[in-house]
C-alpha cells in the first residue's frame, strides 16, 4: 500500500490510459451522484409530507356534543347535550393512565373584545395549559395559560401571532398589554402560533377556563374535551391504544348523558390518527419505493463497475502475460490491478459524492415545491454506498485478475 514504486507504476498506468480511467471513473462517479441525489430527493419528499401534515398532534382527540338523534330511556331525540366540568374531572381521574394530556375548551357566548377602544373580532376560548401540546401550538412570546391561572381564575390571555400582527403591530410586544373582554381587563401574557400555513385556528384568544366560566356565566359548562395519547413504540400499537381509549370515552359520556349507545351523532369525536394512518402508510410506501430505487441503482452501479473491471482485465490479459514472463509474481499483478481499481473507484466515488452533496447542500434548501422540502442525505449512508461500490469494484476486479494471472503465459501472449 505504501510502496512508492507501486504507486509510481500505477500512476504511470493511469496517466497512459486516460480514457479507460476516465470512463471507469465517470461510471462510478455518476452512479454515486445519481444514488445520492435520489436518496436526497426521497428524504426531501418525506420531509415535505411530514411538513404538510404537521398540524395537530397525531394522537390528539377532540370530543364535542351535538343533539341526540334517537330516543333512549324515555328521553326524546333532538335533545342538546352539554358537557360539564364533571365529565372532564371523571375522565381525568378514571382514565388518567391512558392519556398524556387533557384539556377542555369553553366558548363563552356574546363576548366583546376591545383594545384601545377598537372592537376586535376574534373568538375567546377558555382552556388550560395542556391545550398547547394537543393543538401543537408553538409559543412565540411570553407564556401559555398555566395551572396556576386556572386555579386562581387569573385574568390573563394568550393571543396568536395573527392577532399580534393585526392589532399590535405598532408595539414591540403585546405582552403586558390589557384587552377588555366584555368589560373585564385581561393581561396578555403570551403569543402562540400554529404550525403549517393554515392560520384559521389563529383566530382565538385563550383565557383560563375557570375565569371564562366564572366571568361569562358559564357555570360548569364546557364545549370540548381534548386529549392527547402517548405514542407507543410502533404506530400500530398507538392506533390500537387510541381505538380502545375512544371507545371507552364514548361509552362513559353516552352513559352519563343518557345517549343511546348506537347514537353516533350525539357526541362527535375527531381523531386525526385515522387520517395519519393513511399518510403514515403512504410515507412508508414512499420510503420503501426510494430505498428500492436506490438499491437497484446501487446494483446497477455495482454491475457497471464490475463490468468495466472485467473489460479492463480482459484488455490487459496480454500485458499480464508479458509481466509474468518478465518475472512478475502472481500476487504482485493481482495487487497492482486491484490497487489501481480501488484507487480509481475511490477517487471517482468521492468526487461523485462531493458533487452530489454540494448540489443538495446549495440547491436543496431553495426547492419550494409541494411535498418536497429540503432534500438531503445522511452522509454516513452516502459514504457507505461509496465504500460498497469500491468494495464491489475490488471484488469484481479480483476474480478476473486472478483468472488472468493463472492463464498460461503462452496462451495470454498467443496472437489472435
Amino acid at each position: 500500500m505504501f510502496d512508492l514504486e507501486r504507486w509510481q507504476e500505477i500512476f504511470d498506468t493511469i496517466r497512459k490510459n486516460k480514457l479507460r480511467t476516465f470512463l471507469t471513473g465517470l461510471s462510478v462517479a455518476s452512479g454515486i451522484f445519481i444514488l445520492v441525489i435520489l436518496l436526497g430527493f426521497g428524504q426531501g419528499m418525506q420531509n415535505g409530507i411530514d411538513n404538510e401534515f404537521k398540524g395537530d398532534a397525531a394522537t390528539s382527540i377532540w370530543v364535542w356534543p351535538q343533539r341526540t338523534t334517537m330516543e333512549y330511556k324515555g328521553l326524546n331525540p333532538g335533545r342538546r347535550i352539554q358537557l360539564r366540568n364533571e365529565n372532564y374531572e371523571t375522565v381525568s381521574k378514571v382514565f388518567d393512565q391512558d392519556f398524556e394530556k387533557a384539556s377542555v375548551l369553553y366558548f363563552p357566548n356574546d363576548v366583546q373584545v376591545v383594545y384601545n377602544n377598537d372592537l376586535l373580532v376574534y373568538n375567546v376560548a377558555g382552556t388550560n395549559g395542556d391545550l398547547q401540546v394537543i393543538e401543537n401550538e408553538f409559543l412565540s412570546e411570553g407564556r401559555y395559560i398555566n395551572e396556576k391561572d386556572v386555579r386562581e381564575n387569573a385574568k390573563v390571555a394568550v393571543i396568536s401571532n395573527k392577532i399580534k400582527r393585526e392589532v399590535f403591530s405598532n408595539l414591540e410586544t403585546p405582552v403586558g398589554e390589557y384587552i377588555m373582554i366584555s368589560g373585564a381587563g385581561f393581561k396578555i401574557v403570551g403569543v402562540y402560533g400554529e404550525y403549517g400555513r393554515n392560520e384559521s385556528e389563529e383566530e382565538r384568544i385563550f383565557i383560563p377556563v375557570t375565569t371564562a366560566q366564572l366571568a361569562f356565566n358559564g357555570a360548569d359548562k364546557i364545549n370540548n374535551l381534548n386529549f392527547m395519547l402517548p405514542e407507543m413504540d410502533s404506530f400500530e400499537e398507538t392506533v390500537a391504544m387510541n381505538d380502545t381509549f375512544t371507545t371507552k370515552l364514548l361509552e362513559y359520556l353516552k352513559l352519563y348523558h343518557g345517549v343511546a349507545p348506537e347514537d353516533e351523532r350525539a357526541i362527535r369525536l375527531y381523531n386525526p390518527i385515522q387520517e395519519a394512518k393513511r399518510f403514515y402508510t403512504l410515507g412508508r410506501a414512499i420510503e420503501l419505493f426510494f430505498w428500492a430505487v436506490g438499491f437497484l441503482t446501487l446494483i446497477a452501479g455495482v454491475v457497471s463497475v464490475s463490468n468495466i473491471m472485467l473489460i479492463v482485465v480482459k484488455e490487459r490479459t496480454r500485458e499480464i502475460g508479458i509481466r509474468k514472463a518478465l518475472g512478475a509474481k502472481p500476487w504482485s499483478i493481482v495487487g497492482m490491478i486491484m490497487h489501481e481499481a480501488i484507487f480509481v473507484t475511490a477517487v471517482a466515488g468521492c468526487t461523485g459524492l462531493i458533487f452530489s452533496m454540494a448540489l443538495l447542500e446549495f440547491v436543496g434548501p431553495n426547492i419550494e415545491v409541494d411535498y418536497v422540502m429540503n432534500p438531503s442525505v445522511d452522509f454516513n449512508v452516502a459514504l457507505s454506498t461509496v465504500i460498497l461500490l469500491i468494495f464491489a469494484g475490488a471484488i469484481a476486479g479480483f476474480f478476473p485478475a486472478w483468472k488472468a494471472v493463472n492463464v498460461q503465459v503462452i496462451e495470454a501472449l498467443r496472437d489472435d
Partner: protein
Amino acid sequence: MIEIKNLHKSYKMGKNSLHVLKGINFSVEEGELVAIMGSSGSGKSTLLNILGMLDELDEGTYTLDGVPIKNLNETKAAQYRNKFLGFIFQSFNLINYKSAAENVALPLYYQRVGRKERQEKALKYLEQVGLKQWATHLPSELSGGQKQRVAIARAMAAEPKVLLADEPTGALDSKTSYEVMDLIQKINDQGNTILVVTHEEDIAHMCKRIVHLKDGVIVEDKKVEQVRAEQYV
C-alpha cells in the same frame, strides 16, 4: 548451463492424452547459440515453454545453471524467470502504453531495482541495440525491427543467464530479420547463452548449433558453421 534428461510431456485433450515430448535429452553450454528447428507440432514450442518455466514437465529432470527446476510454485517460478531468463517473442509483446525505455526497464521493476537505476540501465541497453534516440517513443511509433530490438534490450536488461527467443524473426521481412539476427549474434559474441526457436533454415544457420525436433524427439543435433548476418545487412 541447461541440462535436460529424459523429458516427457503430454497434454490431456478430453479423454485422450497427447504425448508431445517423448524423452528429450539435451544440454546447452554457456555461450552457445542454439537453433531449435522443427515443423509445427514437433514439440519445439512445448520444449521452449518448459525451458522458460512457463509450463511444467511430466517426467525427467531439468537443471538450469545448477538449479533443479521442479515443482515450482508460481511465485518461485516468477523469481527464477526474472533472474535466469530473458524472453524474445515473435510478436514482440511490448506493453503498448509504455515507452521503449519503460518497456526495457520493466523486468528491473520486478527485480526491485530503484527508479533512477532502472532508467539508466534501460538507456544503456537501448543504446546497445542502437535505439537510444527512440527511448521515449511508444511501440506504435516504432517499426517491426525496432520493436524487436526493444524487446531484445528488455530481455537483456535483467541480465539473464539464458535468452529464449521464440521465432524472433517470424514477423519480420528478411532484411530486418538479418538485422535482428546480427544483434543476437553480437549479444552471443559477448558470451550470452541464447536459444532460438525457428523454422527458417537461413536463420537456423546463423546459429552455432542446430537441434532438429520431430514428433517429440530430437532427430538431429549438430554443430554448424555460423553464417554471420552482418554480411546481409
